[in-house]
């Protein structure tokens, strides 16, 4: 009977009821995952970016601070703009550019914000701020951006920019996300972990109308943002600016150190650039421009450029000679000009006179006695023993070393070793006559300006140094990691050499840098340059007793060290010690920058 079939329909209804109620029970009561999944849909993870640490100089002038730049985001679904022309005008974009941006945003998502315009300066932002209320669906986020009030010290400070894929891959901490800013060079890079601080996270919920409605679980799972550390540098920004001014139009670098602490007072490389160029919207454009510049303004010559030290190296040779008792203070030798080209006249020399007159042939004689001390009958073996001894001495002066400097992008220079000459000439195939150029700081020797400044500092201290350093404080706490390097050369030898350095300035090649009150001691270098005009070098310190500043200057293609480098060093020292310069004529001379054609 067909009428009985209704029971099957009734059973089917009951089965469907059971099926649905058990499935609903599973979804809604038993399985808790769906609750968190729907939370995930509405809880937005908001990253709070820490403010990057500021950097100040030794006198608390602010060198780097943060100013807001603005990024604009678009939510296509919410976009409604009454006056399109005004929008295009505000962002200085064309209609087709806008349409492209809009299409890209829609392709990403209609509901989620897409980046629309990046890095608007706070000045421009202030101009268009009132218009923004008319642009529904366009949101801005303020983003701290590096600002350099002095437009100075660019090489050492470095710059920050968006992290690249490579850097994200290398980062094992997982801290960085796309678009994060990261220090790319200089202090910004080497103190990244201090400066960046630590990002915070806020979980925010959005109500049914899409508005933010407070924090998720009363902020229980939030991460507190920690701002970056403040760095205090040893730099005296006024001195730095003064040196940069003197270096304008020249190629080279100057490094000034406070001898008693090793703290760097100024470190300049020329040509330079305004660090603000690499901050904000025009970063890529400017970076490319700087990279294409043939004078390489991005290149940090103070740390990276290597040169033969030239005559200033004679001071080291003299000190070695004294310590090795090859010469004594009172020793006088007759020097002819037979061995090596020389500008000093022939005659009877003691070490003092040799330094003051920068006699090449004297140091040829001295270096020969250092290398060949007759410790072996074999002249080759004897030269090897002598060179090994010599290079141990040279290394004591911090040459051939990165000096453990805080900025890791530094060149160590080069001190030729026995092994080097073995490779070059073959083992036991070289002797003094192959290496004599070292006697006057030429040949294979290469040093960097910061090493020269450190050398000046050693002389100022009469025999010891602290590694040069640039960051002195992190927040309030002073960095105490100073190791005192004491050279194994007696102080009296240094006193002797320093007297000679005083004479260099008062009556020798450094006369141009003389100033009675300054009591500058120094040594010039004129470094042979096979590619063009000679390089001009100078190291020195002032005042003679209780020195406050040790300085090295190296100016490329500027001819005699007596001119550009000595003048700049003297002016910088005067400026640092007295807070001003009185020698306007010397300043004009340096600023004019025409050192080559002038007769000395």
């Amino acid at each position: 009977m067909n009428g009985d079939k209704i029971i099957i329909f009734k059973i089917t209804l009951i089965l469907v009821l059971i099926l649905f109620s058990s499935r609903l029970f599973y979804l809604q009561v038993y399985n808790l995952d769906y609750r968190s999944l729907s939370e995930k849909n509405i809880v937005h993870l908001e990253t709070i970016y820490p403010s990057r640490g500021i950097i100040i100089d030794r006198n608390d002038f602010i060198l780097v601070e943060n100013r807001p730049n603005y990024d604009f985001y678009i939510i296509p679904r919410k976009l409604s703009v009454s006056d399109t022309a005004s929008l295009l005008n505000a962002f200085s974009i064309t209609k087709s550019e806008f349409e492209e941006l809009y299409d890209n945003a829609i392709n990403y998502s209609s509901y989620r914000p897409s980046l629309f315009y990046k890095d608007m300066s706070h000045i421009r932002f202030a101009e268009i701020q009132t218009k923004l209320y008319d642009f529904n669906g366009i949101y801005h986020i303020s983003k701290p951006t590096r600002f350099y009030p002095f437009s100075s010290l660019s090489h050492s400070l470095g710059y920050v920019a968006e992290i690249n894929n490579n850097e994200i891959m290398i980062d094992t901490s997982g801290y960085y996300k796309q678009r994060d800013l990261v220090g790319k060079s200089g202090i910004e890079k080497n103190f990244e972990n201090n400066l960046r601080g630590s990002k915070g996270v806020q979980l925010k919920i959005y109500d049914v109308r899409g508005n933010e409605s407070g924090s998720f679980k009363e902020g229980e799972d939030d991460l507190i943002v920690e701002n970056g550390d403040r760095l205090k540098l040893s730099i005296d920004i006024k001195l730095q600016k003064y040196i940069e001014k003197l270096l304008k139009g020249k190629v080279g670098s100057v490094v000034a150190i406070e001898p008693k602490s090793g703290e760097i007072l100024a470190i300049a490389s020329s040509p330079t650039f305004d660090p603000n160029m690499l901050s904000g919207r025009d970063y890529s454009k400017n970076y490319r421009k700087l990279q294409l510049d043939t004078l390489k303004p991005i290149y940090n010559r103070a740390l990276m450029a290597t040169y033969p030290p030239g005559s200033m190296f004679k001071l080291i040779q003299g000190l070695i000679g004294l310590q090795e008792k090859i010469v004594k203070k009172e020793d006088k030798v007759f020097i002819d000009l037979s061995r090596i080209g020389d500008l000093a006249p022939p005659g009877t020399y003691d070490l003092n006179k040799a330094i003051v007159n920068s006699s090449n042939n004297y140091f040829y004689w001295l270096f020969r006695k250092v290398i060949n001390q007759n410790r072996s009958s074999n002249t080759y073996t004897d030269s090897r023993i002598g060179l090994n001894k010599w290079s141990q001495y040279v290394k004591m002066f911090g040459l051939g070393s990165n000096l453990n400097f805080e900025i890791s992008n530094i060149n160590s220079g080069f001190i030729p070793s026995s092994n080097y000459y073995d490779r070059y000439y073959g083992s036991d195939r070289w002797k003094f006559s192959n290496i004599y150029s070292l006697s006057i700081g030429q040949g294979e020797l290469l040093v960097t300006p910061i090493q020269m400044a450190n050398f000046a500092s050693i002389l100022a201290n009469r025999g010891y140094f602290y590694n040069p350093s640039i960051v002195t404080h992190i927040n309030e706490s002073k960095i105490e990691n100073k190791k005192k390097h004491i050279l194994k050369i007696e102080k009296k030898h240094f006193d002797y050499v320093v007297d000679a350095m005083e004479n260099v300035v008062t009556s020798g090649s450094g006369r141009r840098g003389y100033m009675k009150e300054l009591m500058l001691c120094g040594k010039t270098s004129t470094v042979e340059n096979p590619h063009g005009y000679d390089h001009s070098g100078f190291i020195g310190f002032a005042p003679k007793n209780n020195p406050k500043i040790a300085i090295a200057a190296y100016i490329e293609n500027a001819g005699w060290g007596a001119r550009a480098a000595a003048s700049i060093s003297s002016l910088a020292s005067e400026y640092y010690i007295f807070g001003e310069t009185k020698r306007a004529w010397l300043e004009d001379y340096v600023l004019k920058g025409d050192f080559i054609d002038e007769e000395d």
Partner: protein
Amino acid sequence: MRKINNSIFSNDPIIIISYLSLIFIGFISIYSSQYSEGISFFSFENESFKQLMWIFVCVLVFFIIQIIEYRFVFDLALPLYIISILLLIMVLFFGQEVKSSTSWFNLFGLKFQPSEFTKFSTALFLAKVFDSSGIKVNNLKSLAKVSIIIIIPFILILLQGDTGTALVYFSFFLVLFREGLSLKFFFIGISFVLIFLMGVVFDKMILYIFFTILFLIVLGISIKDFTKIINSSIFFILVLLIINGQDFLMNNVLKPHHKKRIESLINPNADPLGAGWNVTQSKIAIGSGSFLGKGYMEGTQTSFNFVPFQSTDFIFSVIGEEFGYIGSMLFIILYILFLYRVLILSENQKDKFARVFGYSVFSIIFFHFAVNISMTLGLFPVIGIPLPLVSYGGSSLLSFSLLIFFLLKLNSFKPSLLSR
């Protein structure tokens, strides 16, 4: 003929109350799903406002049906069926394409879906055919005759590309079952569907081996019964055809999105943001409703439009999210109660015309209900059919209302038929 007092509420109060409740729940759910859009309520862009307009239309239609003559309903069956078939053909040529299906007429901005009305006209015509000619469904000739009535609209709707609505026509076979069609046919039909689905999951070779072994076992058991051997051989050949034809069907008849939906039902995590997106988000919406629900208009899934088609095919996800397990269960029970009343009412019809029509109403609504809720709960592939009386959509609301109203109309004439 005795004049009877067919007042609205004396008819079948349970059906009328549950009908009104479902319409009301539908309206508030649509309203909730639309609320966050920020469109003024009194606007034709607002679906809940349009739904309200359609509800008024339904009320009007209800009163019109109350005053028409019983004979008129009977005579209307054939012309309505022919007209709706013609409309189905016309829509293929003049229809508007929406989401890859050409099933809509657009008349002066008013959208109209003939396949919805065809459910009504087919039910009416089927009832008339059963009533007027002595159909015996287990007689193959009769079965073929009634099957054609169902198959014609099925094929035409399939041609429109609206597979989901086309499948609804299979629910008429429930009516045939009530009218005597052997259960055997159902089991065979269901087993073919299952084998088809197994073809999606398993490797073909495994199925061949499995069914060959099964066939050999059956042969061994029924070695002495010749009829059984013939039957099982035919069945085996059909199985092989289905397994083989499965690829053809998947690649040529079903559209890529259907294929993906079938696959995503079997493995919803394979492509959670693509084909599985609707189901994933719908499950999240319903699941996150928990026991008590998030509260009316507080559904976050709903207000952020995470669930696509939430006012139409996925309206149940709104109910599940905002009213929780309690609310969902009350809703399901209300719906089943409604269907149960329709079933009882249909069974009680002494007149064959009324009974076949009633069972058609029951079958169509039951099919929609079971498939739609299964869809939102992730138990069945998403085939895009609405939840009758609850989902947004004028054509669908009107056609389901017509089915209910005519059933009530026929029921109200029951006493007079008795005296005929």
